[in-house]
């Protein structure tokens, strides 16, 4: 039969998706460093910075998450394996990042030490998600 369907299997990550995924990492990291600066100096401006950096990180991570989800749902990628893990790690980073943002809305020292701890966890998760996301670039080369 001539009914052959072709599916283009893209192994690489789309450049815009890559940008969204990568952008959240320095923003979460900035929030973490700002939290650390506030906790060691009591200088309130650092925690204001942290609050906004978190919002920025959540925006980028949110779109990256949406992108991953759509790709998974469209079946562009296998449901199993690295894309799913990347998605789940990024999802965890986003949820905890959102909780972190709510914690940052507590006044003055009320947010400590939870804010700092959450920022450490969230930064690590975002870093892991980015690592996994970009690692797919190389996954296809071997075979």
């Amino acid at each position, binding site marked *: 039969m001539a009914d052959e369907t072709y599916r283009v299997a893209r192994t690489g990550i789309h450049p815009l998706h890559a940008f969204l995924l990568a952008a959240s990492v320095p923003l979460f990291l900035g929030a973490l460093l700002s939290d650390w600066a506030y906790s060691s100096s009591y200088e309130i401006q650092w925690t204001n910075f942290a609050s906004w950096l978190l919002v920025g990180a959540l925006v980028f991570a949110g779109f990256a998450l949406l992108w991953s989800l759509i790709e998974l749902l469209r079946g562009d990628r296998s449901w199993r394996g690295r894309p799913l893990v990347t998605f789940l790690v990024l999802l965890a980073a986003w949820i905890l990042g959102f909780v972190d943002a709510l*914690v940052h809305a507590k*006044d003055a020292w*009320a947010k400590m030490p939870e804010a700092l701890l959450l920022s450490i966890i969230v930064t690590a998760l975002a870093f892991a998600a980015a690592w996994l996301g970009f690692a797919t670039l190389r996954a296809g080369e071997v075979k």
Partner: protein
Amino acid sequence: MRLAAPLAVLTASAMLSACGSQSDPVQYGPNPTLPTPNRGLLPTMKIASPTGWGDQRPIVPQGYTITAIATDLNIPRQTLVLPNGDILVAEGRGGNAPKLTPKDVIASYIKAKGTTQVKSGNRLTLLRDANGDGTYEGRTIFAENLNAPYGLALVGGNLYVANQDALVRFTYRPGQTRASGPPVVVTPLPSAINHHWTKALAASPDGRFLYVGVGSNSNITERGMNVETDRAMVWQVDAQTGAHRQFATGLRNPTALAVQPGTGQLWAVVNERDEIGPNLAPDYLTSVREGGFYGWPYSYWGQHVDERVRPQDPRKVASAITPDYSLGSHVATLGLAFSTPAMGPRFADGAFVGEHGSWNRTPPSGYRVVFVPFRNGRPAGPPIDVVTNFMGKDGKTRGRPVGVTVDPRGALIVADDLSNTIWRVTPARAAAPAR
């Protein structure tokens, strides 16, 4: 890290959390029950849902009547009864605090839903009842182009007005309906940011000094300690020279000041801090001791340490004075006036307090005018409801009381900054025709 439970709330509604609606502890009087501080992941917000009065009216005790003597004002806050019976109304909205955090942006949007949308009047309106029938048929603009006027005081021929950025003085002649010229600045007042912008005002019995209440520039130092210089305190200003000194400190937001008749003692109502639970910290009525420190920001209700403040100051905490009389948490006391026997035997000795109403607890508190009975010059006994039904049983809010003033001829004047109305409460016998 109370993370698990509040996550469920997230999906429920935007910023409303349902925590903390257990039975409320008794928080009236000198020894309020103080729970341990707590705050979930989301701050509790329960904003007034404004609506018109329709055929509803504020409710007053049996034997009293209430009438609206002026409507459609531009945010009336405090009033002053002049010697000839005319009433001055300060109208306006102040504050210019920048939004520093995502929270500021969201919270200011939500809170604005519970207040009037009318433009700030920035003026004084004079109301006159020429024939004494209880109808204030005369209405003139006494002064305009002021900057969020709030506190008012008359000393002899000098009318003092506390704008949000300066204490100013008009000359006043009895019977005047319009100021004869622009005011003279007595002294600038702390106005940078102006998170709590209202400047309460009272004059000493001899008229030599003016007391100005200056609120803090934050809830609990979340804008930094640098911006709290000269905030959260009562200034004593020399009426002649404009020189000032700090009379009492640590008063988070002293929104109304009044001098007690007879003793000459200065009293204040103070709005306390938010976000440590629905029953913390109590707003209070207190005599203001010269040189006294009342806790903010380091501690509340005397020496209960607030852990949110860094660096802490145990020495200041140790010196903190416990206030005289708790009025309950988050009721938002904004008005204070000592009574007179002309108000009837039940309200002869004590103070009226206007409670603007809460925005951050469930169920809401305040939204009423209460009377705190006094004996031997001190508060004695629980507060008595005087004007209620600002928040109806349907949960809708029709008015929010601010300033209260006692007319020595036997009337209580209540400014309402939601329905932009001035209410007048009188013993029925004194104003029988005005039914």
